[in-house]
């Protein structure tokens, strides 16, 4: 047994954490995060140079990672800095491109930005409810429908789209310039887009793509879990600092036992969150990936809300302000629950597993 990161992963995590801390501080982050395209091209390039993207793909696909642990390491670092760059789309797209054996040099070098469009307004999470359709046309296909909450879609060059072909979800590649893309910054910073397809030309990558899409969604959910763990740890550490320094009634508020115990409860939930994320990362390429990823996303949906709400409450008014970073961490922690399956959705996946067993 060994819960240490490998030397390579530790170095990657350290260098990403250091880079983001130095070059992407929260005030810069807020500027980027709340204005389209919610993306800083120069910083994106530097992140790619540090290996943040190459870590997402295995060696035979041109990267140097590609396992659950690699995703975990990268996204935890991003989460600590509340980074708004469109990395989630890259992580999910890389899984898909690896599965279909497509070239992903552009993705890994950062030169081409990808987003993955699965969810729709009435079926944000469910693969079997996709309404977007594909039709053969000439020697290619055209797609019609609306893809909703496409993370990173506002900045993407290429969008990988799930659409129904012959009654099955299939995977297509669409040039962003061929689709109507309505981007927006999100409540918690970072961008997404509604992607409107209307006989939009598309290249078929995989006809029967349910399994590949499930894998990409699992990888994305794992990435979000790791991001949450990073953000929760910073939130907790900042809260502890505040408890030590903020004085009321002549003492640091951290002397009040009721706040001490709640800070301990936060810690407990964060440790649990880290553990379940490690488990999900370990299982990402195994037969029970969906089950463990769902456990992680469910637990983290609960823990992240607790940590966010308690951090605000224990700070008092200051954490209700835009200027104080914890407000942004809290927003991210709460809002990421609704990305790629919320806590109820993932609970029902775990429940379905109980019935099947």
């Amino acid at each position: 047994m060994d819960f240490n990161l490998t030397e390579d992963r530790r170095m990657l995590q350290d260098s990403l954490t250091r880079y983001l801390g130095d070059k992407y501080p929260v005030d810069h982050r807020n500027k980027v995060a709340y204005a389209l395209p919610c993306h800083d091209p120069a910083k994106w390039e530097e992140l790619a140079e540090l290996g943040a993207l190459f870590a997402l793909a295995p060696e035979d696909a041109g990267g140097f990672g590609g396992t659950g642990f690699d995703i975990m390491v990268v996204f935890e670092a991003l989460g600590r800095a509340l980074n708004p760059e469109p990395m989630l789309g890259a992580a999910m797209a890389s899984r898909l491109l690896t599965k279909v054996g497509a070239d992903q040099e552009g993705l890994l070098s950062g030169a081409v930005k990808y987003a993955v469009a699965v969810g729709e307004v009435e079926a944000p999470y469910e693969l079997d409810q996709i309404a977007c359709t594909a039709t053969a046309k000439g020697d290619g296909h055209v797609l019609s429908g609306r893809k909703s909450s496409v993370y990173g879609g506002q900045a993407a060059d290429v969008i990988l789209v799930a659409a129904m072909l012959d009654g099955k979800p299939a995977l297509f590649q669409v040039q962003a310039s061929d689709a109507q893309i309505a981007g927006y910054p999100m409540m918690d910073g970072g961008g997404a887009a509604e992607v409107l397809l209307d006989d939009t030309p598309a290249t078929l990558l995989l006809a029967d793509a349910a399994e590949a899409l499930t894998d990409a969604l699992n990888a994305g959910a794992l990435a979000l879990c790791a991001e949450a763990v990073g953000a929760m740890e910073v939130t907790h550490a900042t809260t502890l600092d505040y408890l030590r320094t903020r004085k009321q009634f002549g003492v640091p508020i951290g002397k009040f036992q009721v706040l001490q115990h709640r800070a301990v409860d936060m810690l407990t939930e964060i440790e649990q969150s880290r553990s379940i994320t490690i488990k999900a990362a370990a299982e990402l390429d195994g037969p029970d990936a969906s089950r463990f990823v769902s456990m992680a996303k469910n637990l983290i949906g609960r823990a992240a809300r607790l940590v966010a709400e308690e951090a605000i409450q224990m700070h008092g008014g200051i954490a209700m302000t835009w200027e104080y970073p914890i407000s942004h961490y809290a927003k991210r922690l709460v809002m990421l629950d609704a990305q790629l399956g919320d806590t109820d959705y993932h609970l029902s996946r775990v429940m379905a597993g109980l019935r099947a067993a």
Partner: protein
Amino acid sequence: MDLSFSPEEIAFRDEVRTYLAENLPKRISDAVRNGTEQTKEMAEEWHAILNRKGWLATTWGVEFGGPGWTPVQKHIFEEECCRAYAPRIVPFGLNMLGPVLQAFGTKEQQDTILPRILDGTDWWCQGYSEPGAGSDLASLKTRAVRDGDHYVINGQKTWTTLGQHANKIFCLCRTDPEAKQQEGISFILVDLDTPGIEMRPIKLIEGGHEVNEVFFTDVRVPVSNLVGEENKGWTIAKFLLTHERTGIAGVGFSMQSLEEVKALARKVRRGGRPLIEDPLFAARIARAEIDLEAMKITNLRMLFKAQQQGAPGPETSILKIKGTVIHQELKDLARRALGPVAAPFPGSMTDGNIMFGPEGTSNNAARYFNNRKTSIFGGSNEIQRNILTKTMLEL
């Protein structure tokens, strides 16, 4: 035991209901329903409408223009206002300063200031909190030094709600730095036009502007603006705390939110069916409804007691704690029901042809975050627990 309102109370409820149906402009109730930021003009318009009817200053004595309602009537009125999506009454002049002046002010202060609150000439804001004095309000540092017929004020107030609309502020200032903390504080009225005052906006977590910081540099205020006795301001502050308590449970607002959540869960489709058919989500709503049903009765029991005893007791802290938690939970459900559709930053989708959630829900995430404030202000829920520990548990 009889849980129903008396025939007179029911008649009163019907009267209020009819009045609201006929007099609350739809334009205004729509804005409240959709959670758009309420403008100054809207608040003033609504205040004026209620004032014409004599229903604006519900906490005032009849001799000052109050309607002379019982606590139960006040409760009915508040509940009906929520039901009709009336805007909240801006409380600082009407429900805070008004009662203070009636209890502690001079005849002249009452005669000059109260009518201007009623007719909307003045908009007051509350200058209590300071950067260093939140829960521990008595540690406040803003100084008022006597200089002939004036006080000279220096210091900083913060979290001043809707100060950007106000022309007046009532402040707690330290007038005797030597005395024990609570005994050196005075309650002073300040005209915001006085030279030396600067107000700066504070942007809140969800991006809105509803609070401010106020800086005082050598601000000269006539001594006649002192309310009550010098160095007795803490008594007034404590008096106000009991007055802030009507409607503290926010039951009407929670009922409003519960209806919104139910309607939303019927409209939103998730995985091929209405969200309300998802047992996990339905369970969340049901739990909140159970808590609220109990809270309605807890609230009435305490009202009943207050009506019998003449004043609310310390147990009203229970209403603040549980009432805010229930309301916050409902705001969480309103955001949660939308799933990822709650994510766009309000106003960021400029293409009006692209619809997201059902109408009036685009601020649901913002409202959830904004409402985290309710367990912090007005005495945080931790402070309320301390009060209960001391007064009721005697531990």
